């Protein structure tokens, strides 16, 4: 008899019962629709144990690696602990000490954090950083677990932003904050090393992309990697020297800074980052896409990339939604 642990209670599965049937038969609400492992409505995640391979059919690689599975076709042979994708309580808040704060440009702060407990993350995922027990915001990770000692965040100061304003104005090195995470499925997955990659980011959307690029390069990705980083004017770009160093170091890496404002100097592409990208690479069949930053850009670029031939399962996106109560 296999036991499923969910929300701190144990449920025994009857023979042949799926995790979905087992939980719903006890009156637990799990969203579902097709009950055939197709529609992905009953997406869940194991927080203890590994889901059977068969229960992960059709999921994106980045979801599989994070132990997501479909409850309706999950017939585990061992005990597992499971959670819904948005069950936040499965992750504890852990303390982290601020090691460094440096402005990357006029509005983006580089924040380096030393975690008091090991954080198992992938470059490009995000964490939540808390100003106090109830007020927190999501920030993407630009660091690499194996190369960087600290967690690196790029925090853009938003007009009337409560947490970003606090980070820019009041936070000091040596202070300890609470963080929770990681989350998100926008990261590099090994395999298909020759596949071409297009990364498009606006503003501090460069943070996850900078992590993803270095992760891919350090894992020996050999296909072409094109980064399009967009801003209105020159002051909005950052890490340009580090990125140009990477271009010199790796022949398959290409960096295209894009400016959508006027008076664009030499060495920069004119136009919005996603427009420039789709102009330069009009056919995206078999390419892997990473889209990060302004929600509207991410939504438009996702649709365009798909219509330009990219497969849905090869499009990874992270929209930086601004909290309504910013």
């Amino acid at each position, binding site marked *: 008899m296999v036991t499923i642990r969910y929300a701190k209670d144990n449920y025994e599965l009857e023979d042949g019962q799926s995790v979905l049937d087992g939980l719903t038969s006890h009156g637990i609400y799990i969203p579902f629709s097709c009950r055939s492992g197709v*529609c*992905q409505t009953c997406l869940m995640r194991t927080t203890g144990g590994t889901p059977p391979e068969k229960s992960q059919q059709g999921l994106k690689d980045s979801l599989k690696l994070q132990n997501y599975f479909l409850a309706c076709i999950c017939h585990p042979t061992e005990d597992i602990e499971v959670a819904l994708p948005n069950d936040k309580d499965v992750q504890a808040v852990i303390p982290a000490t601020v090691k460094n704060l440096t402005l990357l440009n006029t509005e983006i702060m580089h924040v380096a954090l030393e975690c008091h407990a090991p954080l198992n993350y992938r470059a490009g995922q995000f964490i939540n950083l808390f100003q106090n027990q109830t007020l927190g915001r999501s920030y993407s990770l630009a660091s690499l677990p194996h190369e960087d000692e600290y967690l690196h965040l790029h925090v853009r100061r938003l007009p009337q932003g409560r947490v970003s304003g606090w980070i820019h104005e009041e936070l000091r090195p040596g202070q300890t904050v609470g963080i929770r995470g990681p989350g998100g499925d926008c990261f590099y997955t090994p395999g298909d090393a020759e596949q071409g990659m297009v990364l498009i980011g606006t503003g501090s959307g460069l943070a996850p992309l900078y992590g993803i690029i270095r992760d891919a390069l350090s894992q020996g990705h050999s296909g072409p990697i094109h980064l399009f980083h967009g801003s209105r004017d020159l002051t909005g770009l950052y890490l340009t020297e580090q990125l140009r160093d990477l271009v010199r170091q790796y022949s398959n890496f290409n960096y295209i800074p894009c400016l959508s404002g006027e008076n664009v100097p030499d060495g920069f592409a004119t136009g919005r980052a996603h427009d420039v990208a789709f102009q330069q690479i009009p056919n995206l069949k078999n390419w892997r896409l990473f889209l990060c930053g302004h929600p509207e850009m991410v939504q438009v670029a996702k649709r365009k990339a*798909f219509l330009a031939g990219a497969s849905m399962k090869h499009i990874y996106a992270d929209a930086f939604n601004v909290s309504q109560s910013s």
Partner: protein
Amino acid sequence: MSQQASLYEQLGGEAAVNAAVDIFYRKVLSDDRINAFFEDVDMDKQAAKQKAFLTMAFGGPHNYTGLDMRRGHANLVERGLNDTHVDAVIENLGATLRELGVKEELIAQVAAIAESTRNDVLGR
């Protein structure tokens, strides 16, 4: 060909659905007659729905009932979903299968399954 092979098996099962889903969804999004009904902000969820629909139309495993179909499309019917839109979807479905080199007789069977949901989808 074996007489026992189901339509789903003849089409190639889940691999065939996977091959068809991007092509079909791309056609639907590019079709101005119907793309307004598919403008879900969450494209991943929308693609999963397309996959569930194709699995059903290919004669594959599913547990959808007529009632599910009615509930699932009620808000679209309120927004004006009618026979011409169902026609367009079935047309795109056929074009997708033709692009994948599926035989006309199998395409007709798929179209017939899709056709059988018409009244439930349109809530009548």
